C-alpha cells in the first residue's frame, strides 16, 4: 500500500536518508524509534513533499503511484497525512476557515461535491466533540496561542476530517502531558481501521502504550537497523539504543 524503497536523500551535501526502505500494508501501524539525528523527521518531511531536500535515489509509492513527482498538496489529496511535530501558526486565518479550505481542496481534487456550509459545520462539530475540542478553539486563528495539547488535538482533528489512507505522526507525543497524550492517542485509535495505516515516529515507549504498533523499527544513520514487534520498544526503553548501534 505505502512503500518507501531505497530512498537516499541529502540536505546541502549531507546524506540524511541512506537507502531507506519500508513497506506498510493496509491497516498496519508501524512505529519508528531512533536516537536524535537518525533521520526520522526528514523521512516524514520527504514523504509529505517538503522542499529543501534532494532526493538522490529511490521511490515513495502510495497504492502503486510514485509520489516523488507530486507537489505537497497533490500528495495530500491522494491520501497522505502528516501530523506535524510543530504545527505552524497562521495569524488572521481562523482554524475553521482553514479546515474548510483544506476540505474543499480535497473534495475538488477527488471530484467530490463540496459540502454545504451547514453540513460542513455539522461534520466539524461532530469530529471536534470526539476530541474534546470546543467551539472557541476552532474560531481562533490557526494554532496562534494554542497550547501544546490544543495544537496536537487540532492535528488529529484535521486527520479525522481529511480521511487519509496513510498517516505519519511526527513525534506527536512531544510537549504533551499525560491527559493530553491519552486524548490524542484515543483520537488516533478511533481512526484505526482495516484500510488506514500509520507510521508513528516517537522517542518514547509511552505513546506506544496507548497506540499499539504492529511493528517497531529502530532507525539509525538514515536507515532501519532493526525490526520487531511491540516488545522491541519495551526493550529499548530499558536498555537504550547502545545494543543496536554498532
Amino acid at each position: 500500500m505505502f512503500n518507501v524503497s531505497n530512498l537516499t536523500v541529502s540536505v546541502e551535501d549531507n546524506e540524511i536518508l541512506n537507502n531507506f526502505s519500508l513497506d506498510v500494508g493496509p491497516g498496519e501501524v508501524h512505529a519508528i524509534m531512533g536516537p536524535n539525528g537518525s533521520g526520522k523527521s526528514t523521512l516524514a518531511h520527504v514523504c509529505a513533499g517538503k522542499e529543501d531536500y534532494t532526493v538522490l535515489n529511490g521511490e515513495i509509492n502510495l497504492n502503486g503511484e510514485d509520489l516523488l513527482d507530486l507537489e505537497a498538496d497533490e500528495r495530500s489529496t491522494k491520501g497522505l497525512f502528516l501530523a506535524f511535530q510543530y504545527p505552524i501558526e497562521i495569524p488572521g486565518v481562523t482554524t475553521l476557515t482553514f479546515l474548510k479550505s483544506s476540505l474543499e481542496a480535497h473534495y475538488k481534487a477527488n471530484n467530490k461535491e463540496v459540502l454545504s456550509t451547514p453540513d460542513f459545520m455539522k461534520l466539524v462539530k461532530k469530529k471536534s466533540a470526539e476530541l474534546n475540542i470546543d467551539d472557541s478553539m476552532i474560531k481562533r486563528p490557526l494554532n496562534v496561542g494554542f497550547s501544546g495539547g490544543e495544537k496536537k488535538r487540532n492535528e488529529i482533528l484535521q486527520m479525522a476530517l481529511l480521511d487519509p489512507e496513510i498517516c505519519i505522526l511526527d513525534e506527536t507525543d512531544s510537549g504533551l502531558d499525560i491527559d493530553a497524550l491519552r486524548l490524542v492517542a484515543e483520537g488516533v485509535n478511533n481512526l484505526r481501521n482495516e484500510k488506514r495505516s500509520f507510521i508513528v515516529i516517537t522517542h518514547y515507549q509511552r505513546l506506544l502504550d496507548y497506540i499499539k504498533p504492529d511493528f517497531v523499527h529502530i532507525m539509525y544513520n538514515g536507515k532501519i537497523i532493526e525490526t520487531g514487534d511491540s516488545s522491541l520498544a519495551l526493550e529499548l526503553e530499558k536498555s537504550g539504543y547502545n545494543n543496536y548501534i554498532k
Partner: protein
Amino acid sequence: MPAVKETVKQVDDIGVDKYKFGWSTDLETETAPIGLTEETIKFISKKKNEPEWMLEWRLDAYQRFLSMKEPEWAKVNYPSINYNDMYFYSAPKDVDGPKSLDEVDPELLKTYDKLGIPLKEQEILSGVKSNIAVDAVFDSVSVVTTFKEKLSEEGIIFCSISEAIKDHPELVRKYLSSVVPKSDNYYSALNSAVFTDGSFVYIPPNTRCPMELSTYFRINAENTGQFERTLVIADKGSYVSYLEGCTAPQRDENQLHAAVVELVALENAEIKYSTVQNWYPGDENGVGGIYNFVTKRGDCRGKNSKISWTQVETGSAVTWKYPSCILRGDNSVGEFYSIAISNSYQQIDSGTKMVHLGKNTSSKIISKGISAGHSSNAYRGLVSSHRRAENARNFTQCDSLLIGNKCSAHTVPYIETKNSTSVFEHEATTSKISDDQIFYCGQRGINIEDAIALIVNGFCKEVLQELPMEFAVEAQKLVGISLEGSVG
C-alpha cells in the same frame, strides 16, 4: 525550488503581466497644447466654458505652483517629471460634458462595459445588482453620470465638477479648496491650476443617500496626465457612501495622476469614502505605470460628524497618498482603513493624518501593507492633537506582510500631542509568509496560490470588512490577482 522562491516567481510572472485593464480604446480626441503654460490653463478653462472667477482661481494656483518645489521626503524614487512634455487635457471628441446615456458614444459605452462598470440604469434597476450611481470620467472629461434624476428627487446633487461650477457656483465657491488649500502642497497647486474633471456631490440636510455613489476614472490617452478634482459635501445630519475606482492602459511611459479630493461633513453628517485603486503598475521590470500623487482630505467640520476612508491600493508605479481627517467638530470621528499591495518594482508611500482639533474627538487607523517582488511599501502617518482638543483618542495598528526577500516595508508614524488628556495608541507588526506556512497548507491539500490568497486575505480581513458589499468581493479578488493567479 523552495516554496517562497517559487511564490515570488509566480508573483513576478502573473501579478504584473496579467494586468487586466491594460488595453486602450481608439477614439478621436481633442487635446490641449503640449506643456504647462498659462495658455494651457486658459484652453482648459475655455473648453469647459468656465466663468471668469474660475479661470482667475486657476491662474492664481498656477502662480503659487511656480514658486513651489516638488516634495522629496517620501520614500520613493522616480526621475523628475518634465511638465512641458505632457498634455494636460485630452477628451474624446464631441464630448463637451456629460450627456444622457442615449447620446454617449457607443465606443465609450463598450469601454466601460469591458471594465465591468454598470452604466445602464435599467440593467441595474432590474435587481441583479444593487443600485450604484456612476460618474464616469474618461481622461479629462466626465462622459456620463447615471441616476442623476432619481437622486435629484431627494435634493441630492451628483454631477461632474465642471457642471457644478456652472450650475451650482455658490456651493463650489464656498467649499472648493476649503479643505485642501491651493498651495497646500506642490501637487495640490498643480491640480488646482489644471484640474479637468471629477465628481461633485452635495447631500442636503437630514438626507440619507439612497444608493452608493461612485466615480470611475479611466486614463486612456498617451502622454496625458489626469487631474481629477472631487468635492463631497454632506450637510447636517446626512449620510453618503462613495466609491472610487481607477484603471489605465498598459503603456511604456509613465503617466501622471495628480488628484485632489475634498470631503466636508457638517454637524451629525457621515461620509464613507472607499477607493479601489488599480492604475497600471508598470511591467515586471518597472517600465511604465502611473505616478499616483494624490491629496485626499476630509474635514469633520460639524459636531458629531464622521469621515471614514477605506482604500485598497494595488496599482500605480509610484503612490504618494495620505487620505486624512481634520477632526474640527467636537465628538467627531475619523477612520482610515487601508490595504496597500506592492509588487515587482512598485513604490508606495501612503498613510494618513488624523488632526484632532475638537473636544472628545476620536480616530482609528488600520493599515495593512503587503510587499512582494522588488517593491517598497511605506506607511507614513501623523496623529496630532491641538492644545484645546480635550480627550482626543487614537488607536493605530500598522501591519506589514512580506513575500520574498527582495521587497521592503517601512513604518513611519509621527505622533504629536499638545494636550495632556490625549490617549494615542500605536501597534505595529511585521511578518513574512514563510516556507513552513506554505508547506503546512500544502500538506493539507491547499496549493501554493490558494495558500497565499488565504494567508493574505486573513491578514487584511479587518479592512476588507469595511468596504461596501458591492466592492468587497471585487477587492478580495483584486487582492488575490495582484499577488498570484486568481482567487475563488
